Each structure stands twice: as C-alpha cells, then as structure tokens.
C-alpha cells in the first residue's frame, strides 16, 4: 500500500457536484488522490499548484468549456505534460476530434460504466 503522500493525484474538473463526488469515490476506491475543481479557471489554478498525474475534464462548464481548458493546460509548460481525459456527455465524433486536437488522450462519454473508466485511468497511472 502506498502511503497517502505517495498516492498518485488526479484532478477532476467537473461542474456537476454529484458526478464529481461519484468520480471522487471511484478514484478513492482505487487508491488515487484527487482534487476537485468546479470550473475551468480553478481547474487551471489547481493543475499548476497540485501538479496532478492525470486530469479528468468535463466539457460543458460555465465560464470556460473543457476544450478551452484543455488547450490552456497544453499551452502551459507547467501543465502540458499532464495527460488529460475528457469525460463528457458530448460524445459526437466532432467533439472527440475537437478534444484530440486540444491535446486530450482519451474521450469517455457520460454516463459511463465505472469499471470502464477505471480501466482507462489505469492506462495512464
């Protein structure tokens, strides 16, 4: 078992609190640390300060949408190395392509099967 300080960190940027909580519980179940950001700007802030190992990013959020946030993350030298997984209700091909172009590594469509998400997260941690 890894000590708390050694646990990998995941940053969840998600405006829907119940979903964010659920994802948090899921991450806790697989021994991952997590930080929650309710919108894009705070997500970007936390990404810099927390320096997570992985970012789960919603698309439809107030202030900044996920694609913009992803682009911002990828354009900053301090965050551009962090893999970003988009977790969104927007599952169209256009949106998947937009995500890829912004630098995301995966695109998970909500609602997702928890086991499926865990499998994908584990690919990057």
């Amino acid at each position, binding site marked *: 078992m890894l000590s708390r300080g050694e646990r990998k960190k995941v940053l969840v940027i998600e405006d*829907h609190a*119940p*979903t964010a*909580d*659920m*994802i948090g*519980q*899921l991450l806790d*179940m697989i021994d991952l640390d997590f930080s929650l950001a309710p919108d894009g700007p705070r997500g970007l802030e936390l990404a810099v300060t927390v320096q997570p190992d992985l970012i789960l990013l919603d698309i*439809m959020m107030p202030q900044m949408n996920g694609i913009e946030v992803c682009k911002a993350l990828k354009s900053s030298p301090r965050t551009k190395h962090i893999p970003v997984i988009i977790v969104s*209700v*927007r599952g*169209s*091909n*256009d949106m998947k392509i937009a995500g890829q172009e912004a630098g995301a590594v995966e695109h998970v469509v*909500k*609602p*997702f*099967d*928890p*086991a499926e998400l865990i499998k994908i997260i584990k690919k990057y941690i």
Partner: protein
Amino acid sequence: MNYTFAIISLFGFLLSGVAAMLVLVRNYRNLLNWLFFLYASMVALFNLCDFLSKITPYIARSRFYNDLSVIFWLWFLFFVLHFSVVLANKYSKKMWTTLIAVFFTTTIIFNWITLRTTWIYLTPVLTEWGYSAEPGLYFGVFAAYSVLLVLLTAWNFWLTRQNVDDIRLVHQANVLLVGVLVGMCIGLIGDVILPLLGLWNVTLVPIATIVYIAFFGLAMFRYGLLSISPSTVANSVLNTMPNLLVVTDLDHNISMVNEFCLKVLGYQEKEIIGLPMKSLIAGENSSLLCGLISQELSRKGFVKERRLQLKTRAGLDIPVSMDASRALDRFGNQLGCVLIFRDVSDIEKLLAQQKEAIDELTRTKERMLSILEDTTETRDRADEATKKLARAYEDLKAVDKMKTEFLSVVSHELRTPITPIKGYTSMLLSDSIGKLSEEQKRAVQVIQKEGDHLLGLIDSVLDVSRMSYGRPLKLAKEPVLIRTLAQELKEVMAPEAGMRNISIEVELPPDFPTIIADPTKIRRLLTNLLGNSLKFTPKGGHVTITGASGQDEVEIRVVDDGIGLARDNLEKVFDKFYQVDSSYTRAVGGVGLGLAICKEIVETHGGKIRAISDGLGKGAAIAFTLPIGG
C-alpha cells in the same frame, strides 16, 4: 360557144368563197361573221352551180346544176336577211324573229318546188352562152319573193344607218345599203325585165352577187363592220364602268346617265332624264351645293373628289366621291357638265371599321397599361412578401439554431444527472462501497435498469428531433465485424432475455464478411432490433440473428416467434412514434421510435430495411441490408 358569162360566174364563185373564208378566219366567235360566212358560201356555191350548168354539154346535168343554183340562191337570200336583222340589232324583236322563221319555212318550200317541178325554171336550152333555163310558170312569184327579201334586207340596213351615231358605222351601213340595192337592180334588169321583153336570155344574177360581195367586203374591211369603233368602246365603257355617270345641260338638268347610275339610283331612264341635278343630291342645301360646284367648275374647269351624298329614288343616301368636268363642243363652248360619282359607302364603312378598330386598340392599350400598373403593384407586393418570407426564414433559422442549442443543452442536462446514478448503482452492485442485502441489490438493479431505459429514451428523442430537422446522420466508418458484434450484444442482452426465458441465437457463419460502417450506429441498430424482438416475444420464445452475404451487400435478419405483425402494419412499423398495439406496447414500454431510428441508420448506410411477418401470432422478422464496401 361564148363562155363569158360562165367565167363571170366562176369569178363570182372565187370572190365570194375567198371573202367567206377571210371573214371566218378573222373572227369565228362572232354571229355576224358566221352569217356572212354562210351567205357568202351560198353565193359561192350558187355561182359554182351556175358556172357548171352553163358549161356542161349535157342537158340533164345542166338542169340539175340549175336547180341546185336556185336552192343556194334561196339560202343566200335567207342568210343575208338574217345578217341584216342581226346588224340592225332587231334580232330580239318578236316581228323579226317571226319573219326569219317564216322565211326559213318558205325557203324549204321553194327548195322542194325547185327540185320536184319545173314551175320556176323550164328545161334549159342551149344558147350561144351555153345552156340557159327559161322561166317557168311561177318564175314571177320566185322573183317577187327574191325582191321582197332583198328589200327587207335593205330596210334593215337603212334602220342600222338611222340608229348609229358613229360616222364609221353610218358609212358602213350606207355601203351595205347601196350594195344591196345595186345588186337587186342588176338582178331585176338582167333576170326579169330583159327576159320578159325578150331582149335577153342570160341570167345576170352572178354579176349582182359579185356587186353584193364587193360592197359587203368594202363595208367590212374598209369601214370596219367587224372591228371595234370608238363609239362602241365609249358605250361599252359608259355602260360597264362601276361609277355613276350623269351628264347635265346648261340648266343643270340631267340629259344623260349610264346604266350603272340607273341601277344604283333606282330610276328608269325616261324618269331621270330632264330632272334637275339638285334633286339627286341629298341634304337640305342641295341647291346651294349645286351652285357651289357649278361656280367651281366654271372657275377651274373641273372638280375633284368632292364628297357628297346622292339620294336614290327610294330615299336612301349613298356617300359618293364626285369628279366633274365641263362638256365642251369643238369650238370650246360649254354644252353642259359631265359628273362621275364613285360609290364610297364601302370605303366609308371601311373607315368606320378602321376607326372602331383604332378605338378598340386604344381601349386595349389603356387596359394593358392598367394591367401593367396592377402587375407592377402586384410585383411590389410580391417583393414585399418575399422579403417578409426571407425575414421569416431568417427567424426560423434562428429558431432552428436555438432549438439545436436547446437540444444540446437538454442532452447535457438530462444525461448529466444519469451519470452519477449509473456510476453509483454500478458501484453499489459491485459491493465496492459496502455489501448490500439481496433485497437492496434487487432494488438497486431496478434503479440501474430504469436508468439505462431512461438514457435510451433520451437518446431516441434526441435522434428523432435531429431527424425531423432533416439533419443527416453523420457516419464514422470503419471495418465492423457483424458476427462479433452480434455475439457481444447477445451477452449484453442475456440477463434481460434470461429473466423471461427467451433464447437468443446468433446464426451467422464464421466467414461472414466484415463490412465498412459506423460501428456505434450498427451497434445501436442491432441493440434496437434485439430489444424490439425481446419486447414482443413472450416468455420461452426465441430470437435469432441470421444473415446471408452477396457480392456487394449483406442481409441480416433478426427473427422472433413473438406476436407477429398484421400485413397492413408491415410498412407502418418504421414510422415515427408508431405503435402496433397500444395496450401491448404500454405493457412492454417504449415510445415507438426504435424502428424509425433503425430505418434511418440502415438507409444512411445505403441499405434497405423491411418487416416480414406471416400475420399476427406468427412471429416477425426485420431484415436489413448493408453494403459491404460502405
């Protein structure tokens, strides 16, 4: 023998023969010419017979020729009289027609007498001039008859002379008259008077006929008996021209009119001659008009194209155009006026019609202009309506965009809460956040199932909204292994099928072709079809996926032995929101969108879908084709 008289007869024969031919050659379409031809021929034959009777050495033959010459003589007299009647223009008169008929009959009778008896001439006797017949018992009658006919002929020529005013025709008639009379005198002296006195016994009639023919020839060729004279032309022109000719004297009384004038105005010639000219002119101030015209005539010598109205005997007015000129004698003294009226009622009618046509055209033009104005107005209104339509279209587009955005938001808003529901139920069921009792687990399973159902409904509604806006499905094509997909779905559906004891079989051969299609959509298609079959198949039933592959496409069928479909419903099942039996579908759930979405997916891929069923209670199959190459 002395043949002097025989030769005279021969000369008479030649002269009259040539004259007869010449006249006929000149114009054979004229009755006068034919009559001249006939009587000249008779003269020729008479002379020939006379010549032959004189020179023949046989008495019987001389007698025969003599009788023949008498017959030709009689016909000559008949034809020359006929000629004179026609020339004097008396042929239409009843008396002359009767006379001609009478003389025709008498000619026939005399012919008979001549041939059958010796009443006119006795048997010829030989003289120093050849044979010569002595006068018989009735010779006097015969001679008197001849003189009568010649005199009648002469009388006709006299009448002709009196009736014509052309100097040429007068000369001609004179010549004819003199010819006839001189010939008659010679004949009378030579054949009647001298023989009766016993001084002479040779006929001089051949000489008389030569005189006849000579004078007739002179009349014809010298004075143009058969040619057209200026007065004939003038008369003909006056009486055939389609204009009214009126000649007035110095007192402006009518002294002459043409036939057309009589016809148009409805007068008899005797009624109109002597009438004052003004009585023919319509209108109250006809006297004044006559005075004006007469003044203008004496000033200028002519009046041209003066419009006025003539009055017919019946009181009708006829519009005419008048040309007038003075009639002068050869010393330049005015004798009267010559007025020519041209009937212009047709022209007036034409002018009236023309005016009417122009009026009609003007009215039409005005109507067209007003139509044009209306059209312009209509066009303006149409332009405005088009602009309104364009604005409405823009509004609609904006609404449509809003709707799309709304749908997107709805999609997000509806799916978002389901995410934690599904996540938590999965975690609960996997015991990863605490162990659940069996009852709790069943309850959570229901939540999970209904969540999935809700998600499916949301997806369907979104798809149909999109379809109803005509937005085509976007396909992301890649190789799809149908068989693998079907087996996977079988596993996914197994729990649900198991609950109702329905078996799902995939009967696709291992070498079933890989097709190029959108895997997500094909998965959706098969899920819908399998779900549909499960829904409508009672407990213990069977659902089978079969397939066949052709060269370019594959056909896949999802077959069940469920409630089946009525024949009428085979097409309708693909309609949006269509549900075959509402009571049953209410029992099994669903909104009637599954097959409509399937149809769209198949058709967007370029395939076809249809429903197959033998009827209610006999199971159903949905068959669809997909192109192998995408």
